[in-house]
C-alpha cells in the first residue's frame, strides 16, 4: 500500500528543510512520486525528477530526461527533489502524515469541506482544520491531489499527509 513510505517521506522532508538542504532524494515509489508531484504543484518544491544514485546536473535540469525504467535499473532509482527557500526561510517547514499503515484515514466530502475551511472534524476521525498556508493531500480515485482540488472535483478518499509553512 505504500503508506509507511509516506510517513518516512514526511519526516525526511522536514529534516531536509530544517537542515536547509537545497536538494534531497527519496525512495522511488508510486505514492512518493504522486505526493511529491502534487506538492510541487502546490508550490512547496522547485522540481521533482527521477534519477540514479547521483543527482541530476543542476545546469541542465530544465532539459533533463531520466533514463528509461528497466528491470535492471528500477531498484536503484530515486526521486530527486528541490526544496524552496524564500527570504531566508524554508517554504516547507512542517509535513506530517495523517494516515498510518495501522490506521488509514479516509474522509468523505462533508468532512473534507470542514477541514479545508479550517474547522476540526467531529466524529469518527480526528483531523485538525487547516491553518493559514497549509495543504492537505488526499489520495482519490483520480489520483493524489490537494484537498481544494479534491473538493472542486467532489472526491473524497484516503487522507495522506499535510504540509505547511
Amino acid at each position, binding site marked *: 500500500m505504500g503508506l509507511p513510505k509516506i510517513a518516512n517521506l514526511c519526516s525526511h522532508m522536514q529534516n531536509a528543510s530544517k537542515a536547509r538542504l537545497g536538494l534531497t532524494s527519496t525512495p522511488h515509489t508510486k505514492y512518493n512520486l504522486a505526493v511529491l508531484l502534487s506538492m510541487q504543484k*502546490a*508550490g*512547496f518544491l522547485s522540481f521533482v525528477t527521477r534519477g540514479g544514485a547521483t543527482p541530476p546536473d543542476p545546469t541542465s535540469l530544465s532539459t533533463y530526461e531520466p533514463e528509461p525504467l528497466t528491470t535492471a535499473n528500477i531498484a536503484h532509482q530515486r526521486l530527486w527533489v528541490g526544496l*524552496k*527557500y*524564500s*527570504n531566508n*526561510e524554508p*517554504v516547507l517547514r512542517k509535513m506530517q502524515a495523517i494516515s498510518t499503515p495501522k490506521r488509514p484515514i479516509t474522509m468523505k466530502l462533508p468532512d473534507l469541506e470542514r477541514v479545508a475551511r*479550517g474547522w476540526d472534524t467531529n466524529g469518527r476521525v480526528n483531523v485538525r482544520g487547516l*491553518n*493559514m*498556508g497549509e495543504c492537505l493531500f488526499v489520495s482519490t480515485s483520480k489520483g493524489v491531489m490537494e484537498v481544494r482540488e479534491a473538493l472542486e472535483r467532489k472526491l473524497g478518499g484516503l487522507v495522506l499527509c499535510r504540509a505547511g*509553512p
Partner: protein
Amino acid sequence: MEALQAGEAAIDPKDLTIQGRLRVDAYKIPFPRRFQPDRPQFNPKIRWLTEREFVNDLARFGKEAEASQAKAWMEQKLNDPTLSEEQKEWVKGQLAKVTAQAERAKVFDGTDDPAGTDDLTASLDFLFERSMLNDDNTPSDTALAPTLGKGRLDDEGIYQDLKRRTGLTVREMLTELTCKVLVVRQVHNQTRLGKIRSIWVLAIAGNKNGRLGIGEAKSVESGAAMQKAKLMAIRNMKPVPRYEERTIYGSVTAKFGGTIVKLDARPPGFGLRASARFFEMFRACGIHDIAAKMPRARKPMNAVKACFEALTNQKDPNEIAIGRGKKLVDVRKVYFGGNVL
C-alpha cells in the same frame, strides 16, 4: 539652480518623502547638501554685511529702541494730571528732541558723523544693559533674561533618551501609548551579609494600533523598577501583524520555557477571550477578536513572554504566497466584495 528646482517640481513630493534618501556611495553626484535660495552662496543678490555695516546696523537698532522707549515714557507723563503746565512744556520740548533723534537714528551712519563713535558707544550700552528693569518687563528672547515657560511634560528628563531612540514625542509617549505593569516579583540576592531584596517588574507598552513591546527591569525600589520596565517596554515595541486590524492571521503557537500559548483568530464581535494578562496585551496592541489557551504551565512571566513571541512571529500571508509562487486570496474579502470591517 532653476534646473534643479524644475527637476524637484517634477517629482511627486510623496515619492520624495518615501523613497528619497541621501546617497553615501562612491558614485554619488557631488551636490551641496541643501539648496536654499536665501543662502548667499546660491543667490548672488544676498551677501553678508561687512563689519562696519553690521556695527552701524546694530547701533541704528539700539538708537531706535532707546528713542522709542523715551518717547513712550514722555507721552505717559504728558497725560499725567499731577504735572504742572510748566513741567509739561518742558516734557514737550524733550519729546520733540527725542523724535528728531529717532528720525536721525533711522539714517545713522557712524562713518559720516564726527560724534558717531560716542553715539555708537551710548546706543550699544543701552542695548547690552537692557534688562527687565528698564524695558517694562516685556518678553525677551535673550539668554540673559529667559522667560519662565509653561510646566513641561518631562521635567525630570526621563523620557529624553527614549525620545532620541524611538523618535516619538514625549506627549505621544504619555498620552497615546498604553503602559501596564503585568508581573511583579520579589527577588533576592543571597550574599554572605544577608539577602538583598529587589523588585523585578515586567511591563508592556502598546500604541493600540499594531505595536507592542515588553520590558523587564529590576531595582531595590519598586517605583524605579516599574518606571524602568515601562521605558524598556516602549523601547522594545515591535509591529504585530493584524488581520483586518482586529485579529491575528490563523492560529499561532509559541513556547517559552514550560509555557505553551495558543492563539486563534476569531470572527468580528467575538471579543477577547483570554486571561487577564493576555487581555491587557491584546488591548494594548489593538486586537479585538481572539481566543487564547495555555494548555501547560501558566507562570505569569513565561506566559507574557510566550504570548509576545506568538503575536510578533506570525506568518505573513504575502511571504507564503511569494515563497510558493501562488496567489493567496482572502476569501472573506472576496465574498463581501471588500466590504469587511
